[in-house]
């Protein structure tokens, strides 16, 4: 489906709405427009199950009048609708309270040429639907060829071609295009009453970086069958090794605890810890919006602040919080270019890898849990407490002994950061929050009495 629209059109639209907002009496106006063309195919047991093709446009705007803020958004981009929303927003801003920290960022002198980030791959735009269908089919077929796999939740191939434009009344006008391609498969093994499941995937900005159907299928099979015939273990405290996906999940929780918004809201256990040691010497955590060809990269954030590289934790010391302009003003720090919608979000947020191989980390563990998957919520940012259902492999004498399930794992993020003993060398960027294998000295497992 060709729903690509002239690029200039979105810029003109955004600028026109900024001018309209000012004419309605706003002191400051910000308009963001997004245009996304998506394709997705789900294949299950060899047959196409769903095929989705669409083009979507959306607009978000912010107006500030007399230090008071109102937001609006629409997927209906007709001028009548948007102009009504702008008039309403200017009027509604009156009803908010005056807030000294409200307002647009100061304009920045220079903006990176988005081409340097290499976020747009024409090969994804040109990829024909039949190839995507074939890849999804192929991924699932290779996985199902393994006799231990009894059923499939299906394989999917998705592509997105996005175009973002941002304009504001301080003269900012920026745009970039970004592509995405993803391929995944999700499998089941075992008997109906003793099913185990897992999945694997690859998500990239460039097609040539995407893992092959074969590689994804083989990994998904290996990850699924290793759960077969799980045991429940007894309640105890043991070292825990985090699979890279589990480290990423832990980092996602940490990232939420490191935003300036959470700090002024006092909704993070790290609120008072700036400049202090929060983790072991080996921990260096970086947010970098300028990594070429990465999913979390962009030339500027949601309010037009240039993206940058921010060392958040350096050798265990908390160096800064991630901020948008508002949160930065609230807590007296500069914006780190992490505005995301109305809040703060990561760009590429990652734990710097160490030099130990995952195999060596396993070998170092006499007895412990290799954590592969968690189930449930159980994350409390205010206290840092963690409690989740867990699946993994029991490690004995440096080797996987048997799979475990129906246990829970609990601890506290603050304590975990202080007890990271080893960091793997296996960092892969398959999302915007990523980490390598890590080993934590000790966590509480709940299982059999």
């Amino acid at each position, binding site marked *: *489906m060709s729903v690509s629209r002239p690029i200039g059109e979105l810029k003109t639209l955004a600028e026109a709405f900024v001018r309209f907002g000012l004419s309605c009496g706003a002191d400051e106006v910000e308009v963001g427009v997004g245009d996304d063309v998506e394709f997705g195919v789900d294949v*299950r047991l060899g047959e196409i*199950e*769903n*095929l*989705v*093709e*669409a083009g*979507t*446009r959306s607009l978000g705007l912010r107006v500030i009048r007399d230090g008071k*803020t*109102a*937001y609006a*958004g*629409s*997927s*209906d981009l007709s001028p009548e*609708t948007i102009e009504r*929303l702008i008039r309403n927003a200017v009027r509604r*801003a009156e*009803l*908010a*309270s005056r*807030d000294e920290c409200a307002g647009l960022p100061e304009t920045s002198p220079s903006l990176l040429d988005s081409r340097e980030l290499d976020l747009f791959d024409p090969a994804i735009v040109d990829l024909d639907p039949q190839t995507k269908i074939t890849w999804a089919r192929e991924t699932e077929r290779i996985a199902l060829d393994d006799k231990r796999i009894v*059923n499939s939740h299906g394989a999917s191939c998705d592509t997105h071609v996005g175009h973002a434009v941002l304009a504001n009344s301080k003269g900012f006008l920026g745009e970039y295009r970004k592509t995405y391609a993803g391929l995944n498969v999700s499998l*089941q093994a075992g008997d*109906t*009453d003793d099913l*185990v*499941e897992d999945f694997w995937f690859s998500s990239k900005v460039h097609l040539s970086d995407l893992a092959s159907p074969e590689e994804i299928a083989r990994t998904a099979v290996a990850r699924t069958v290793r759960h077969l015939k799980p045991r429940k273990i007894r*309640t105890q405290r043991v070292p825990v090794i985090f699979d890279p996906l589990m480290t990423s999940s832990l980092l996602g929780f940490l990232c939420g605890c490191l935003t300036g918004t959470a700090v002024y*809201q*006092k*909704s993070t*256990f790290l*609120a*008072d810890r700036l400049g202090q040691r929060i983790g072991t010497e080996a921990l260096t955590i970086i947010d970098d919006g300028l990594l070429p060809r990465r999913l979390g990269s962009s030339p500027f954030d949601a309010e037009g602040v240039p993206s940058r590289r921010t060392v958040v934790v350096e050798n265990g010391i908390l160096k800064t919080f991630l901020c948008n302009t508002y949160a930065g003003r*609230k807590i007296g720090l500069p914006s780190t270019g992490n505005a995301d919608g*109305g809040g703060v979000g990561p760009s590429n947020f990652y734990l710097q890898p160490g030099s130990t191989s995952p195999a060596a980390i396993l070998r170092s563990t006499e007895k412990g849990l290799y954590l592969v998957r968690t189930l*449930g*919520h*159980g994350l*409390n940012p*205010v*206290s840092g*407490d963690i*409690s*989740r*259902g867990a699946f993994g492999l029991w490690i004995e004498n440096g080797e996987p002994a048997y799979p475990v399930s*129906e*246990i*829970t794992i*609990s*601890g*506290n993020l603050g304590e975990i950061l202080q007890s990271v003993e080893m960091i793997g060398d296996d960092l892969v960027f398959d999302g915007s929050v990523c980490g390598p294998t890590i080993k934590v000295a000790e966590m*509480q*497992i*709940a*299982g*059999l009495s």
Partner: protein
Amino acid sequence: MTIFEDRFPLGPEATASVLSEALARGGDFAELYFEYRLHSSVLMEEDIIKETSESVGLGLGVRVWAGDRTGYGHTNDLSPERMRQAARSAAAVALADRPSVSVSDFAPAVPLAGIAREIRPAGSADVTEKIDIVRRSYEACLAADPAIKKARVGWGDLVQHVAIVNSEGLIISDVRPMIKLTCVAIAEKGTAREYGFSGSGGRVGLEHFDDAYPPERIGREAAEEAVRLLEAGDAPAGEMPVILAPGHAGVLIHEAVGHLLEADFHRKKTSIFWNKMGARVGSELVTIYDDPTIPASRGSYGMDDEGTIPRPTLLIDKGVVAGLLTDRLSAKILGRPLTGHGRRQDYTEIPIPRMANTYIAAGPHDPGEILASVKKGFYAERFTGGQVEDSGKFTFSVSSGFLIENGRRTRPVKQATLIGTNVDILNRICMAGNDLAFGQQTGTCGKDGQDVPVNDGCPTLKISSMTVGGRT
């Protein structure tokens, strides 16, 4: 004349022409889903009304079936050209390997009436009224206890207009209002910090906050939970008897049973329950329904997102699997009745079987008697959510609870995950209270990346033994 209300000014001819385009390549069924939504929100924190917002969503989703394949296209531009393009995208799945069905004559249908209970609709209320409700809740929260250092109160109201037309001749439309008021309280004592949460709402009008649930109560409840957690110890770790408080704990039933009886997991044979229709999977005390027709409830609707009139559905009858939650596709493939559980997050998504209001029926026991029967165990009071996988392994997260010692609730404890396998747990439900209650009308369920509003209910329940994932 337009087919629908003013929101979708589309004549019968234009509609039929988009449907015909969708069937042009040989589909068995085509459907147009028009959606228009108006959302408004207010946020108060740091003692100020920090921001207000308003958003409009408008779009069309076109679905085509060819055998078991689904083609889907959507657009938020309702020009004839874009609608036909979305229809062509959906039609692509049909691959022209069979003759098309023709579009039947349209037979207008009407959704169930009386689902929304609103006297003063939020959609047409002035934003100042909403700000007043938010402010009252915020101030009550901060005033509730000196330990409360921060409060954050959010208001959201939504009016969703939906109109559905399909090639079988169905035409139906509905308007679905929804309100949600939530409060988060942060309490501090020394270096310890905890948060509490409360909220209310549903398919109701502003009058809901006059007497049924005053905003001050929501503020106070959030504050009380935060303060209680400051005093709470770590939850125990290991297997022990567990009592679930009435109301919110219905999330356990939602996870342990509801998802696994959504019919898509049955046609795919991925659910542990797929071959268990008529089989015993739980104790006699376990009778579970999903009822989308409960007036005013967050999970309710007068028609589902395929235009089916919903009906209360018996899922488990005294421990025996008795029903499935179906959408059109799974009902067709499995030969099961339509229950009206085909739901979607919005027009960009394909409908799938989902829960609405899921609850376990009241039992014979007095709640006091249930508590008295436990010598040493865990009382799960408040919940933040749960998750299940098709194998039946599920968790649910308890934000606060109590130890039970000698039949009494004693020390407050915080943050524990309960984990189990559904059939094990259903068999271990050994007492059920006569005090069925529903959750606080703030729940959202996520599946396949789609969020829909739901509610859950349960009476006091005793599980003879379950793994509690605390820290001590």
